């Protein structure tokens, strides 16, 4: 299958404009930015600890992501189905994969804007002290990979419903499941399966990156996770036809 990147770009442009064609996209980013910067400055212990780090910020972002990413992905397919534009889109001469990639990359870019709005935090830390930049870089790489994984998952879930709210709620629930799978309170019920369950938990791999350890196994895990859900999305569309 030959992918035309020009076609991917057409879909991408339409989708990214869709986020910003109304005030909702801007308001969403503004609220996120204010909330996250506020949260960071008023996080417990930030002003009390002696070291300057973003550890607490990355911990909180894992929770924020459970709501942020589903909100970004919920409309990607479901809105097209509800309004009937799915018929316009899927009868244009695009490969199914081009359409999926266009939508996926637009959501990823929107996440990029959201993460970009947190850049003042490391800049602020740099001005008041000497943070561990490797740790910060690792954390951001982890956030990008975690977000990219959740987006692939959310995109697939959005395909299965016409209702954005249902897409949002199911995505929150499934992301939450992948999130808690790596934690001891959950794993203690899994018995001999717990090593496998913890391995497929996104939080387990994210924690590793957020500690500044750039392990290729974690990166391969996230890339595999993304590819798997994009493939399932492709398969779902082709089967639905």
């Amino acid at each position, binding site marked *: 299958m030959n992918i035309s990147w020009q076609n991917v770009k*057409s879909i991408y*442009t339409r989708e990214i*404009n*869709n986020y910003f064609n109304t005030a909702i996209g801007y308001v969403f980013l503004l609220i996120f930015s204010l909330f996250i910067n506020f949260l960071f400055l008023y996080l417990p212990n930030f002003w009390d600890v002696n070291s300057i780090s973003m550890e607490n910020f990355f911990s909180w972002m894992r929770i924020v992501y459970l709501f942020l990413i589903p909100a970004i992905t919920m409309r990607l397919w479901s809105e097209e189905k509800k309004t*009937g534009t*799915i*018929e316009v889109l899927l*009868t244009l001469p695009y*490969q199914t994969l081009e359409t999926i990639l266009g939508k996926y990359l637009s959501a990823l870019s929107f996440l990029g804007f959201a993460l970009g709005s947190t850049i003042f935090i490391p800049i602020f830390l740099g001005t008041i002290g000497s943070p561990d930049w490797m740790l910060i870089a690792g954390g951001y790489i982890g956030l990008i990979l975690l977000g990219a994984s959740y987006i692939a998952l959310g995109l697939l879930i959005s395909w299965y419903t016409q209702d954005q709210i249902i897409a949002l709620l199911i995505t929150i629930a499934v992301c939450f499941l992948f999130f808690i799978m790596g934690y001891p309170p959950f794993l203690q019920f899994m018995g001999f399966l717990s090593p496998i369950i913890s391995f497929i938990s996104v939080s387990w791999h994210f924690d590793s990156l957020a500690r500044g350890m750039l392990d290729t196994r974690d990166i391969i895990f996230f890339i595999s996770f993304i590819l798997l859900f994009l493939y399932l999305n492709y398969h779902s569309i082709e089967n639905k*036809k």
Partner: protein
Amino acid sequence: MIQVENLSKSFNNISAVKNINFKINKGEIVGLLGPNGAGKTTTMRMLTGFYKPTSGNITINGLSVENQRIDVQKMIGYLPENSALYTDMLVCDYLYFIASAFQLDNSIYQKNLDYAVSATGIEKYYYRPISQLSKGYKQRVGIAATLIHDPLILILDEPTSGLDPNQIIEIQKLIIKLAENKTIILSTHILNEIENTCKRAIIISEGTIVLDEPLTNLNALKKGGFKFHIMFSGKINNVADVLKKELSIDDVQLLSDNVHDTKLTLTTSEHVGEKIYECAVKNNWPLKELFAEKESLENIFHSLTGGKS
């Protein structure tokens, strides 16, 4: 140009389209008619590659829709039912987005755009948000989008649905104009629309084709046919048999006979009103009512689709 062979489509083991066959030649304008749920939209969706057939083949210009979907879609302009559009976009951005899928050269795009915008009469609305347009203008934008790549084939699913009478006439005129150099398939519930715009009608009922005729044949059928509604006072025995025998007509149907009245219908190619009257006088039947109804496309549609709506 379009060849459909043994085409079927099922959803969860429920057949929407059952083994249909038809062929449409270049330059034809064909109306797809049928009651709701007959399989018109499903057929159109298969023609455009939106659905894959459960069985059967569709070839367009020698290319298989299933195996060469992208090449086929480049030849088709498709207006889905209810003219779904991206309402968050401006008209100009929407047309550009649709055109970008066909990777047209800029000069060709400009030429096609000028034609599409002027043919559909949306010049004044070109920079407007689609969400602010009336239903009629949204429909026009949808049609303009189907023309943006100057396709060989137009597939229009209920193009006049929800429009007011003036808008319907305008869209019909536009379709006739487009038919000068394109092959067009349109679906509709409005029989008048088929008579006004099409040269051939395919009537679908319960997923099968029940009629596929040029409009000229249907018109001949209409002009030649009469349906007589007859009512006599009181119960008359053997009235249908006597009428059949004396008028040499087979299609006589007894609808009811009771102490109050006897009702019949009689279908024939000639006007036999006088003969029915003479027969009634001769047999001393108290004729209460007699009127002739000209066979219309509605009647043909009604009888072929079993009266489903």
